[in-house]
Structure formats: C-alpha cells, structure tokens
C-alpha cells in the first residue's frame, strides 16, 4: 500500500466491518494428509463463506500425485463437503474453485518448483493475488529443509517490494531442544522470524482465548489468583481413543512430546502469566516467556513424574487392544501414551503452588480442562461433621468438549441440620456460542493472511518449553536404559497408571475426575 494513503471507507470506530484479508494466495504442501483435508481445506471454505477471504484468493496444491487442476479441485470439494462447518453454497464454491491450481512434483524436483513459481506468477496476473503468498507446510518436518531450500532457490521465498511471503508450519516443532533449534535454523535461514507462523491450533480456540478474557477483564478472580489462595493447578488433556493408525508418527514420540510440550505448557502459561501490557503479539510473548523461564522441575523426577501405556481391556463398553498390540508397534516399545508431571513456578505469585500436567490416550473420556484448586478456608466455624462433604473450591476452565467454566463451592444441604456439600455452578460456553463461533483453523489461517501474530508461538517459547521437558525425557530414557522402572501398563478407559495417582498422593492431593 502506498504511504500516506488512508482508505476513506475504513474507520476504526466502524466495528461492524469484518477483517478481510488483503489480496493473497496460499500454497499447500501435503494436500493428501489428514490435516489438510479435514481442517485446512474446510477452514478455507468456511472463511470464503463468511466473506473473509479476498476476492481472487487462490489455493495451490503441491504433491507427488499425478493430478490435473480438476482432480485437485475434486479433492478440495470432497473435503469441504465432508468437513466444512458452514453450509455448502454453490456460489461460494465457484468463487473458490476458480483459484485452485495443482502442481505435481516431489520435494527435490527442480522442474516442479519452477512450475510452482510460474503458477504463482500466473495467479498474480489473472487472479490479482498481488505477489502475497503463504506456504503452508502440512508435511513431516524432515522434509522442511528440502522444501524451504527449493523455495529459496526458485526465488519463491523473497517477496517483491510491498508484498509478502509467509511460511506456516505445524507441530511438532522438533522432538527436543536441539532438534527444535535445528528445525528453526532451517526455516530461519530463509524466512525472517516475523514471516514464520507456527500453528498451535489450541491457541486459536475460543475457550483458550477466553482464559485471558476471564482473567484480565474481571476483578473477581485476579485478587485470589496467587499462592495465598490457590492450592494447586491441574491441567488435563485426555483422549478416549488409542493411537489409531498413527503408529509411524507416534512411536518414539509419545504423549509428552506430542501434546505436553505445546498445548499443555501453553495452557499453563496462559493461566499463570502476569497481565500483559497490551494484547499485541509482542506483549503477550514477553509475559509467556517470563513465566516459562521461571518454571523449575522437582529435584526428584522419579517421584514427580509418571508415565504409562494403555493395556488391553474394555473402554467405554468396547473391547480394545493395548498399545503394544497396535499394528507396527514393537512389543518392546517404551513410548508413553500417558504422561504426568509436576512443575513449579518460581515467582512471587506462584511459589509453592504446584502445576500438575497430565495427558493420555485411551482414558476415561475425551476432555481438556484447566482446574485451579483453591485452599480450604483457614477457619471453618462449623462442626467437623458438617463440612465432611466440603472439599476445595475450584474454578475449572472446560476447554473441550462442553466448553465453559465451572465453579465448585460449598452450599448448605436443605434440611434442619447444618450440612455443607460441594455444588457446581456452570457457565456453558458451548451449545450456544460455539455453534456460531469459528473453528480454530479459520481464525489462524485468517491471521496468517492478515499477518496478525498474537496467537502463534514464537521460536523462543518453543525452546523454553523444550527446556522444561528435556530433563524429564532424559530421565525417562535413562530409566529405560538402566532397565529400571519400566513404563507402567494402565487400564484402558480409566484414569491412568497407579504411579500417577501415587505421585499426587505423596503431595497429599488427588487428581480430579474430569
């Protein structure tokens, strides 16, 4: 945009006007993957349907398949039909379909990348994408290097004056600190940090963003959000399914690397961080980095971590096999499908308040939540029998499913005797709001096109979270090497291994049943 020009039709006070991305296109690597078909393509359609994509938006698919443009269009069509959130409308599809292109080739194919460059130039001309393109790498990280090198070599990575080139990558961002740095070095060499968008779809969720709204827009919670009142925090992400067909990806990675490093530690940062100066990307990042760098691990990792593998059994009324019986998993695998750890945050606000993180597959039910558990009242002017059913006051952020907030507190049981028991007060964010609220991917893809980075983790955050996790992973590897304390088998459809329960029992606490 020329400087000095202000669009007279834009007005910051005109808050009804939606944000529409400027002229741009996207190149999708790995079009046949699950993620591309189930999330990315439908999200693009939903954005178009909501009128948030620029006229002329173009999507180029790149894959090894021998396809013509129409074949690719068919794939996108099918995935939109099957997975889009909003209603299918022929006119929206027509708008989108005109901008679909396909380039065939593998990641080392010079001729194909040359064709990709010509395709993009052609799109700039006939669709008016203005030289602005995002490269979405929906491919295994081991291919990042090849693709990024090719993009550079064929002049695809460098924008012309006044336009942009961005790269979008998905987790995993490495499998430990070192590999995360290597991966970043590959991308960093070609794309400047502000052009790299790391997608952690959790951060695009309305309910996750609502944690910040609830904490910093209200006066009700902040005064008690500290070690004077909070006893501990539990962050749970449980799945009721096994690894499914993802053996190749999952084995050797495990629960801690798969979700703890990114989703759970990000959730923890949002719950624990101090108030940012403002809600721009920079201020949020500063606060998150501060909290992540004050995380310390317990001295005795053997007593404060637990891991397990699901065993054969019955889950939710279905007979299921154990992890070691899954296809393509060696029966000597030590990959954990359940992990729980204790972290401490050494700040004035949180000293002495442990954060317990747990995640696992094939647990009791699918649920993600953050529970802030408060201390008991210092003095209870009731008889001991009256408060037997009273436990800790709790505020629970229900991230998914059944999005909302629960508060647990004591209330008198109706009757002549003074009896107090725990009751729940629910705010149901789901059911009502969520039907109309966009998928995380919609929000994130729009943010990429707009160049709006607050919801994307930066390399520094990624490295800090690996710094937290690396010693635990090393400790487990050492245990395995020494043949000591093997990965514990746990009952499918229940809430994880005994050692996880013992870990909290040692601190005089119990896991909530989410």
């Amino acid at each position, binding site marked *: *945009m*020329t400087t000095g*020009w202000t*669009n*007279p*039709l*834009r*007005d910051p*006070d*005109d*808050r*009804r*006007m*939606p944000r*529409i991305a*400027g*002229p741009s296109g996207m190149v999708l690597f790995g079009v046949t993957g699950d993620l591309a078909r189930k999330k990315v393509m439908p999200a693009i359609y939903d954005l*178009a*349907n909501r*009128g948030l994509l*620029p*006229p*002329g938006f173009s999507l180029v698919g790149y894959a090894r398949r021998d396809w013509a443009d129409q074949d690719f269009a068919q794939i996108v069509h099918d995935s939109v039909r099957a997975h889009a959130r909003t209603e299918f*409308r022929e*006119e*929206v599809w*027509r*708008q989108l379909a*005109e901008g679909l292109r396909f380039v065939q080739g593998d990641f080392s194919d010079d001729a194909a990348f040359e064709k990709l460059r010509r395709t993009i130039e052609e799109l700039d*001309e*006939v*669709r*008016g994408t*203005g030289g602005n393109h995002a490269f979405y790498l929906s491919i295994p990280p081991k291919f990042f290097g090849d693709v990024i090198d090719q993009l550079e070599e064929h002049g695809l990575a460098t924008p012309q004056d006044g336009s942009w080139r961005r790269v979008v990558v998905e987790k995993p961002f490495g499998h430990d600190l070192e590999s995360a740095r290597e991966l970043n070095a590959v991308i960093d060499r070609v794309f400047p940090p502000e052009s790299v968008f790391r997608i952690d779809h959790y951060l695009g969720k309305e309910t996750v963003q609502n944690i910040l709204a609830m904490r910093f827009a209200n006066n009700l919670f902040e005064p008690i959000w500290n070690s004077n009142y909070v006893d501990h925090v539990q962050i749970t992400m449980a799945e009721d399914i096994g690894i499914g067909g993802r053996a190749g990806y999952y084995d050797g990675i495990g629960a801690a690397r798969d979700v703890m490093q990114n989703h759970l530690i990000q959730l923890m940062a949002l719950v624990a961080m101090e108030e940012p100066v403002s809600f721009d990307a920079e201020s949020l990042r500063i606060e998150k980095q501060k909290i992540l760098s004050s995380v310390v691990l317990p001295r005795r990792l053997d007593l404060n971590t637990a891991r397990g593998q699901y065993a054969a059994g019955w889950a939710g009324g279905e007979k299921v096999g154990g992890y070691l019986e899954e296809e393509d998993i060696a029966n000597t695998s030590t990959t954990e499908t359940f992990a729980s750890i204790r972290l401490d945050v050494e700040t004035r606000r949180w000293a002495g308040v442990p954060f317990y993180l747990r995640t696992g597959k094939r647990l009791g039910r699918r649920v993600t939540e953050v529970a802030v558990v408060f201390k008991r009242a210092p003095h209870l002017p009731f008889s001991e029998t009256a408060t037997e059913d009273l436990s800790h006051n709790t505020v629970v952020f229900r991230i998914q499913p059944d999005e*909302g907030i629960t508060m647990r507190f004591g209330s008198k049981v109706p009757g002549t005797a003074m009896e107090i028991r725990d009751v729940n*007060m*629910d*705010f*149901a*964010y789901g*059911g*009502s*709001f969520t*039907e*109309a609220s966009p998928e995380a991917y919609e929000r994130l893809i729009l943010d990429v096109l707009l160049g709006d980075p607050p919801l994307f983790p930066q390399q520094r955050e990624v490295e800090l979270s690996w710094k937290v996790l690396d010693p635990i992973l090393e400790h487990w590897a050492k245990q395995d090497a020494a043949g000591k304390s093997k990965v514990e088998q746990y009952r499918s459809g229940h809430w994880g291994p005994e050692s996880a329960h013992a870990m909290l029992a040692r601190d005089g606490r119990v896991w909530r049943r989410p």
Partner: protein
Amino acid sequence: MIELTDTNSAGIAAEFLRARKKAGSPAMGMVMTLVIVVDEDQAHDAMEAARGASKEHPARVLGVILGDARGKAVINAQVGTGSGWSGETALIRLNGEVVKYPESVVLPLLLPDSPVAAWWPADAPQDPASDPLGALAQRRITDAAAATRVRTKAIHRQCAAYAKGNTDLAWTRLTPWRALLAAALDQHPEKVIGASVTAERISPSADLLVAWLNDRLKVDVDRTNSDGPGITEVVLRTKSGDVSINRPDGKLAAFVSPGQPDRPVALKRRSVPELLAEELRRLDEDDTYAATARRLVKLASK
C-alpha cells in the same frame, strides 16, 4: 409450551421458574432480554428468527402482540424453555386497556442487570426511543425494508428519529457490501472522484449506502434503479478507471477493478436470523450508523 390465560407478569415469571426447575435447572447463560413487538400474523416467523439468533446470543425472548386497546385488559401468554432454544421464551398477547401500558407487563420480566434489545420485525414506531417498550431497551432494531405502511419513507423517518442505540436491519444488510468496498479500495488505493449505487426502486439499504459513501468519500453518489434483487451494482470512479461490484442475482458478485482480472465473489443476501445475530453482537452505539443516518437526513433535505 404452557398456555397461561388471563395472567400477569408474576404469573409468567413463575412459569419461567417452574419450567426451568422442571428441566433440571440447567445452566442457561442468558446474556440479554430480547423484546419483539409484532403482529399476530408475523409472530410465528419473528419468534423463529429469534430462535436462530439465540444460538449465538442466548436470550430471554419476549414476544409482545399488541391487540385491540378497547375493553377490559386481558393478558394471555405462551411460555416455554428448552427444545431448540438456548434460553426462555414467552409470547404475550395483550388486549384491552393494558395495550397502552405494555411496559408494565415487560419490565418485571427483564433479566436482572443484562441488556435489553427491542425489535420491530415489521412496522416500527415513528420514534422508537420514546416508544414505551423501546425506552426499556438500549438496542432498538427496526426494519425499514419490511415496513408495510409508507415503505418509501420508512428509512428516512427512522434516520430522522435517530437516537443512541437505534439501528435498522437495512443497515445490517449492508455490512458485507461495505466490507467488500473497503477491501476494493485497499487493493486499489486511489482517490474516488464519483460513485453510483444501483438497486431496486425501493431499497432502504441502497439509500443508506449512498449516504455512507457520500459521508466517507465526500463525493456525489448517483442512485439509479434496477429490477433488483436488492442492490445490484456499486461503482467507485477513480482517475485510472472504475472499481465496481455487481451482483445481478443476489448471490454471486463480480469484482471489477482497472488493470485486474474480473473476479467472482460470494455476496449472498442474508437471512433475518443472521442479521439479527449480527445486530445483537454489539449493544453500544453504532457511531458509523449515526453518522450515516445524519447524512441521509441531510441529503434528503437538499
């Protein structure tokens, strides 16, 4: 649905509470009260539209049907919760003298603290802000395009009577057009030297669009007629050529700008529940609409 005959506000409030307890006291999370002032024949459609909008904004929806103001006051109501509603609903029929005092029925039924929106799906009072029910609300939604009486003048009257919190669905219908026009100028950053809006003969939205463009661009905006549906074309003239968006079929528009290929862009006419949901998203004053309404009045007086 529970039918209450010859009841009053307390009777309706008690029924809300009873229905809620019967449903196991679920968390309703209602964020506002929506008062719909409607005729008997439109009541069903209006309540359906509110049901659609209530998915995004859980509300206590009070439909008020004002009957014949003569004779003895009688209040009948249908009260319901759940089953597709994320809130509570009452359709209240007033007859007799109470028709002159509908606010006395509605006031006790407003949710505590929460905001109140009023909506007239068809004919609205001349001055919604001083209407007894409108005065209870901080958002007053009219629909000039749905007026059945003096439709040509409806939007002018609403704009002339503008007060903080008033809004009209004719304005809401324009949001996608306005967003696209703003995006068009982002892509073609050049001074606009003239503009025109083409729409069916009676189109409150087109009148508002003319006023908005005139207000923002400070140029004369021509208004020409077509067979519709709704707005069919908007042209922004610049030195290097015309930027235009034309939508002959009410669904798919063509986006034309100088030196660029023509591009299709979906621009569907939206349904009333969608419009209502957008309207309820913000309950503070819409400054842009206020400026546009002032401009429309000024243009009309020329």
